[in-house]
């Protein structure tokens, strides 16, 4: 494979790139060649090392080992600025804009037109206006970027890289927070880049986009290159097979399990009726004892908002019953008291107090239960947290080391484990395995299933369709703050879910609402 195009027009060649993070081998001798004028799809599961690879290519991170060859000459990149000077630009997975500055300043990114040393706002606005028109972006140059909705910020952070016409643009999930229209927009930008002779590397979790855009795909798995294919030579199923690999199919294999129908007689743990808020519209939802309900949808579809609203973080109208009791979820504490538990998607930011010990983090949520008159009972607490550490196989140097010292998967187990002592009736997991390695993933799946079979109602939100399908007895699909479809877990396929989610994008079809009235 690599021999064939060596002489033609290899723009960038990454050779034997290796990168290790504490506890994770992110990249393990990856090879990647990008040719001028092509769109190369980089395919891989969560955590397979895609972003890390691009960050190394763009000088944001250094590889532990390996070689970067640009135009046939090995280079070492001093940093993002150096890479940019050499024509390599990265559009990162996370939005990176300066919220207090205007659209124009963000677009021009520090290269502001000046007159007599001073910024020439008039010229800048005129120039920006023209460029925005050219990029077909409906934004005012004067607007403060922080005031824009996230998807427009994302468009802007793409545009400000693309406008410089770099020779190589590395896109890391550019479309995850965009609407269908805007996705088309990004397509157009990529087409024009390619037409101008630039090369593109593209990452997405919407496999269809590879078929829309890419000339070739490279598949990463566990930090290794496992395949390189012309796009014409693969289909979606093949791609998934390559991504997942045999051994990993195992963990996504649904155990022979009860299906949706089996829960109809089980007690209702959670009944949500007509919940509406700033980001949610008229949500109905039931979760029964022992049932795992998955929630799928595009980024920005309102899944996290649903979880947070059910956990008392946002004002809402509508009614919620937990274990048959009508409850008002005005604060997280009220939600906890009502029997709802949330493992938030942002583990470091919201799931754990990293500076506090494993013990404290595990005990925190049940302090009010285990204490007497506000005074803690250390013996009682420790018995509980010791049990959780043992049961969940949390690997830690001790109960009293700070949570920051644990690996991601073990931190996540702590974030889940703290609710076990509290004994809730409903457990909501938002992206429970984000950034968690394969082994820990399997353990977490097992844990979730065990909790469900012990009688909890479980709501699992995940961007990883395989994960939803693996766990859920029933899958709800959200879009634009609504539940737009439902599938029985056994019947759900990646395709059927994606179809539901996409159909609701753009012009909502009336039919999409019928789907869930099963």
């Amino acid at each position, binding site marked *: 494979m690599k021999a064939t195009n060596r002489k033609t027009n290899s723009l960038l060649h990454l050779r034997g790139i290796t990168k290790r993070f504490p506890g994770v081998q992110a990249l393990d001798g990856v090879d990647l060649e990008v040719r001028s004028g092509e769109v190369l799809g980089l395919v891989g599961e969560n955590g397979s090392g895609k972003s890390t690879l691009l960050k190394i290519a763009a000088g944001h991170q250094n590889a532990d080992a390996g070689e970067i060859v640009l135009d046939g000459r090995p280079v070492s990149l001093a940093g993002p600025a150096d890479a940019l000077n050499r024509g390599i630009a990265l559009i990162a997975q996370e939005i990176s804009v300066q919220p207090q500055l205007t659209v124009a300043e963000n677009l021009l990114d520090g290269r502001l037109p000046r007159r007599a040393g001073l910024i020439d706002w008039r010229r800048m606005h005129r120039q920006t206006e023209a460029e925005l028109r050219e990029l077909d972006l409906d934004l005012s140059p004067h607007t403060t970027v922080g005031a824009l909705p996230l998807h427009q910020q994302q468009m802007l952070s793409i545009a400000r890289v693309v406008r410089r016409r770099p020779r190589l643009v590395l896109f890391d999930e550019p479309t995850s927070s965009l609407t269908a229209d805007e996705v088309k927009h990004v397509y157009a930008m990529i087409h024009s880049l390619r037409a101008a002779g630039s090369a593109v590397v593209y990452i997405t979790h919407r496999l269809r986009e590879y078929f829309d855009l890419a000339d070739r795909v490279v598949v990463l798995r566990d930090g290794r290159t496992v395949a390189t294919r012309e796009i014409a030579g693969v289909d979606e199923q093949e791609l998934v097979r390559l991504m997942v690999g045999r051994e990993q199919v195992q963990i996504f294999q649904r155990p022979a399990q009860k299906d949706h129908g089996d829960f109809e007689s089980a007690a209702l743990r959670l009944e949500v009726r007509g919940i509406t808020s700033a980001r949610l519209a008229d949500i109905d939802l039931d979760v029964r004892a022992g049932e795992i309900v998955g929630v799928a949808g595009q980024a920005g579809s309102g899944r996290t908002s649903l979880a947070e609203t059910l956990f008392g973080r946002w004002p809402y109208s509508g009614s919620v019953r937990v274990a048959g009791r009508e409850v008002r979820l005005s604060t997280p504490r009220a939600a906890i008291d009502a029997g709802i538990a949330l493992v938030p998607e942002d583990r470091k930011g919201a*799931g754990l107090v990293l500076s506090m010990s494993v013990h404290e983090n595990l005990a925190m949520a049940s302090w009010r239960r285990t204490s007497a008159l506000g005074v803690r009972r250390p013996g009682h607490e420790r018995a509980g947290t010791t049990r959780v550490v043992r049961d969940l196989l949390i690997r830690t140097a001790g109960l009293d080391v700070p949570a920051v*010292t644990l690996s991601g998967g073990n931190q996540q187990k702590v974030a889940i484990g703290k609710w076990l002592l509290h004994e809730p009736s409903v457990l909501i997991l938002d992206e429970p395995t984000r950034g968690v390695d394969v082994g820990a993933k399997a353990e977490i799946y097992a844990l979730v299933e065990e909790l469900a079979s012990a009688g909890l109602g479980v709501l699992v939100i995940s961007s990883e369709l395989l994960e939803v399908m693996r766990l859920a007895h029933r899958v709800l699909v959200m879009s634009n703050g609504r539940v737009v479809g439902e599938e029985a877990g056994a019947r759900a396929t990646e395709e059927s879910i994606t179809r539901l989610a996409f159909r609701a994008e753009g012009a909502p079809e009336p039919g999409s609402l019928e789907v869930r009235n099963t």
Partner: protein
Amino acid sequence: MTVTPSVPAETSGRRGTVQRPWIRHLTGSSAPMFAVAGLLLVVVVFQLVTEPNFGSSSNIANLLRTSAVPILLVVGMTMVILTGGIDLSMGGILSLCGIAYAKMVIAGVPTSLALVLTVLLGAALGFGVNGLLIGRFGLSFFVVTLASASVLGGIALLWSGNRQFDMSGDGLARALGNDTLGSLLPYGAIIAVVTVVLAGLVLRYTIFGRSVYAIGGNQEAAQLSGVGGARVIASVYGVSGACAGLASVMMIGRQTIADPTAGSSSIVLYVVAATLLAGVTITGGAGSVYGALIGTAFLQVLSNALALRGFNNSWQMVVTGAILLVAVYLDRVRLRLAARRG
């Protein structure tokens, strides 16, 4: 909301080397406290050797009597700073509470009742004004306490009619602020130290106390665990108000007058510096009230020593500021090293 700990917090190492507890203490988050404690010891020993009167019972009583009010204030400030806030209004509350106490006593309220009511007033001001606005409405602690300091200090002046009140006849206040048990132990210092110990116990053994640390460590995570609500934040300002209330009566006893300007902004900044000196970090979540006690003791012993050696206030300003700078700088170096090792 993404909270990226600005300081790469101490990690005990990838290889999971288990350190002995006492080593962990010395290199861990208590390191600043032990460092300042060591420095304190050095100064005390030096003074004892070179200054025969330093260890005299009257000097010790003097030191303790002078330290009582700052220590009380430091306890409240520590609680607030542990949640990641600052209470700039302690001075205003102190002034207002002092006038309230004097007015009550002059109006014939029994002093012990007046004392209780004054502490409650302090708590209510802290909880109801600062606490509500910061905890419930989410306003910036800095702006809120800056503003309430001004309002409360102004009210104290207006209510007093810009006058000091002679309180020399008030035995309770005098006992708290002036008298000693035996020849050595001022009651005020006993109360201050008891308050420190109480606060230490509360911080360690109660839900409230642990919530304070949790909020300082990561407010969002604490909230999502049901322990970091508005009430805890408000309560912390309530505690600091109560400390200021109690301190106001001590101050009256010490000065034998009630002075509407008793709590100045510079006292408050002194208290902040004392709190931060020995390991209570300004971002919250780390440090202990014992560290704060040691920091205050150090500053007090230092100014006692400098004054007796004829170094005037200016020298004390320079030395205090320099030590604070060195302390935070060294702490940063320690955290860097810890992060590198990890």
